[in-house]
């Protein structure tokens, strides 16, 4: 597909908006009963909304991502891996009197100051087994028990948003994450070389795959994404050319220079995903996996292995937020992990598998406010099994709140279809403006 072809396709959303307008006039009476918000949704506001879900694999230590340096027990529990307090060298970046962000999360903190990033400091999936693999399964499948369903909740949410293809989704990475697997076809993309030179081959294979339920849709989707990728990568190259070196290298300021070398790529990856999402007829929903958070030994504090991973996350988020431009105001990003880590430092200057952790919500579409959910504190009596941060919010409630208030998914579908058997888990209120 050439760039011109894609430009031509760009007309179709406009046409459909005009058609929707005419349709809306015919439904005038109904509209009054629907209320302003429902009206807007029914008339294509959903088409502007963007949702990015980032899964941090390995059990991200919430007490380092958003260190509760104001909590009386934090320093003693954490020992050598405690993040220093506000204003100290390498100290936490202040959010409120209790919480800060890890010092490697500078760009995220700048968003937080503007009310465009909030923390959810004690959230957990319903799984309590402390197994990576079970917990990731529950996080991504959205089931209440492990291996309860083989599709992902984000895929079923797409199903709930309308007929197949209405809201398009993409995952970043060479393999398909569970969260986006399911009946609705989703694109996938990863950086790297595209197909080779034989222009006949995709057509020949398309014919061979005509009745192949696995390869057929995958090839078709892959080819369409290739066409978008050409434009996305060109757009990012153009905007990068206009940036100064210090902008490109921003982030991870507290890290030694040698450790910052992966950060420009992370930023670029975020910007490229943004370019996929801002193209005409672009992807509205994206799933991203970032791994490397299983810090059993020598996890570090201001510096160290976890700081490096968090700087990577920060650079990715920065690239995504800047790349989305005006669309950032219609975007919600949720970052979550399968479980948190032990409140106490372990015997090897790391932390073991725990329970509740911190999730982040970001975006111009957020409602301003403090932490989402309650903070149980780290008082010994409040620790879950005298070991972990106690959960105060069900992860599904957070996801449900975002899907309801940002993507307009109705409660009944959230309770039964997207998160089966979760009627007792209320959507988190007041996250999205």
């Amino acid at each position, binding site marked *: 597909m050439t760039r011109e072809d894609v430009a031509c396709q760009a007309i179709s959303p406009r046409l459909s908006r005009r058609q929707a307008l005419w349709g809306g006039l015919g439904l005038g009476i109904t509209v009054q009963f629907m209320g302003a918000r429902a009206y807007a949704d029914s008339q294509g506001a959903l088409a502007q909304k963007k949702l990015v879900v980032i899964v941090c*694999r390995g059990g991200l230590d919430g007490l380092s991502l958003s260190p509760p340096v104001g909590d009386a027990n934090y320093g003693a529990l954490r020992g050598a891996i405690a993040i220093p307090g506000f204003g100290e060298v390498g100290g936490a970046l202040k959010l409120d009197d209790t919480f800060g962000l890890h010092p490697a999360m500078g760009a995220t903190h700048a968003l937080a100051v503007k009310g465009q990033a909030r923390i959810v400091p004690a959230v957990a999936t319903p799984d309590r087994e402390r197994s990576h693999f*079970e917990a990731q399964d529950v996080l991504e499948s959205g089931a209440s028990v492990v291996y309860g369903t083989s599709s992902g909740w984000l895929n079923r949410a797409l199903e709930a948003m309308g007929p197949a293809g209405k809201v398009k989704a993409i995952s970043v990475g060479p393999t398909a994450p569970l969260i986006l697997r399911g009946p609705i076809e989703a694109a996938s993309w990863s950086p790297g070389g*595209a197909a080779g030179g034989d222009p006949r081959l995709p057509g020949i294979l398309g014919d061979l795959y005509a009745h192949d339920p696995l390869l057929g849709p995958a090839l078709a989707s892959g080819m369409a994404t290739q066409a978008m990728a050409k434009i996305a990568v060109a757009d990012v190259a153009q905007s990068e050319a206009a940036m100064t070196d210090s902008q490109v290298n921003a982030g991870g300021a507290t890290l030694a220079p040698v450790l910052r070398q992966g950060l420009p790529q992370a930023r670029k990856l975020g910007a490229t995903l943004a370019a996929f999402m801002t193209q005409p007829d672009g992807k509205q929903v994206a799933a991203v996996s970032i791994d490397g958070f299983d810090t059993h030994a020598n996890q570090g504090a201001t510096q160290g292995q976890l700081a490096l991973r968090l700087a990577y996350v920060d650079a990715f988020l920065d690239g995504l937020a800047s790349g989305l431009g005006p669309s950032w105001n219609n975007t919600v990003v949720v970052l979550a992990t399968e479980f948190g880590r032990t409140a106490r430092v372990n015997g090897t200057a790391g932390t073991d598998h725990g329970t509740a952790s911190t999730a982040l919500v970001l975006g111009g579409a957020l409602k301003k406010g403090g932490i989402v959910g309650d903070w149980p504190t780290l008082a010994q009596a409040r620790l879950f099994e005298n070991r972990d941060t106690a959960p105060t919010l069900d992860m599904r409630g957070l996801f449900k709140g975002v899907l309801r208030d940002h993507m307009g998914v109705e409660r009944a579908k959230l309770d039964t279809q997207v998160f089966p058997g979760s009627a007792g888990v209320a959507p988190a209120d007041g996250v999205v403006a």
Partner: protein
Amino acid sequence: MAIDRDLKSAIAVTRLGLGAKDGEIAAAHDDPEGYLIAQIRPEGAEQPQANAPTAAERFNEFRAYQQERQAAKQAGDVKTDPVKMAARMLRDDTGVDFLARVRLAAGTDAGFRERWALFWANHFTVSANKLVTATVVGPFEQEAIRPHVFGRFEDLLVASSSHPAMLLYLDQAQSIGPNSIAAQFQARTGKHVGLNENLAREIMELHTVGVDAGYSQADVTEFARAMTGWSISGLREPDAGRFTFRDRAHEPGARTIMGRRYAEGGEGQARAVMKDLAASPHTAHHLAVKIARHFVADDPPPTLVARLQRAYVDTNGQLGAVAKTLITSPEAWNPTAAKFKTPYEFLVSSWRAAGVLPQDIAAIAPVMNAMGQKAFSAPSPKGWPEEKEVWCAPDAVIKRMGWSEAFAAKAVGDRDPAQLAANALGARLSPLVAKTIARAETRPEGLSILLMSPEFQRR
């Protein structure tokens, strides 16, 4: 369902083996099961490298490098870039090992034996995505896995769990009993040391009984206590870089794990636990499911699982007997190819089909990365996933197509793609794909179509 020997020999070589070399399906034709059973041997799998560097040597190199780096830092030598140095070491050592492994797979006459070894290497994953284990995945496989893959599971389990690569990958080497002599000594100096339960948990969850076996957090912690002391000799100690038992770090006392009591026994305490874990019916079931899932279908037939489980229990975990049961089970020969190849399997079978031995790791590594299976770098201790949905993402199919084109252009030479297809798939080659290859405009296009055909992408 009875299937003819044409199809059965094709299945033997492409599903249970690593893909057909020229003439291999014909060689299996008279007795497909016997062809595979003959590959089972007590001495285990082939070694990819003769006289390979040992894990101990690699560790010692790594530690020496760390010390040099520290010294350089103290001397203010800013030019020694540790990340670049480590990256070079990683590329060189890991590259040599990985190339040897893919060359073995691409060339061996015993494809089933190698697949069986790769299965166990993945079951006991040590990943290069951790710096300290980056250069020892190959040696780990050579020393701990390959010699034991047709022996007793218990021996394989102990070999894996006591190997320095595993002890470091899952943080066991530094785990210290809170009431041990070492911990008391450290406490006097004000240093807090203690337990790390990572390896203990993964042995139970991933390597033996499985997460549904009904054990608790307390069982995991008790096993972690029993395992304290399993460690590695330091640079200045005898047998540097090898397994050692540190009595002073061992948590004293008896332990209770999954309802069984284990008397104090030093190093033997954890071995006694492993013996019982290996003998557990939960382990028999867990392993049977994994074998059936890898060799036959993501959603494995329960009857096959039951057969494998019974073979394991009846023989006290003799893996050669389990392998033979797999080969002689009717479920393994289902005419439908249910498995979608992983990138490693796809590349290996492509090399075999084209009769090519890979030469250059610099050409292979980026391809493995792009297809989502970075060399020796499984994403977690769970190893590489099996499910087709993971590997058949749209992006991955595009990357496979791009590689096939580039590979076919170089590899096909003056050979006839139709003949290559017949050699590679035998009776599994569908009339539609055969016809499409026959109509290809060029030889490279014909080979690309073969490699990307639905039946070649599956096994």
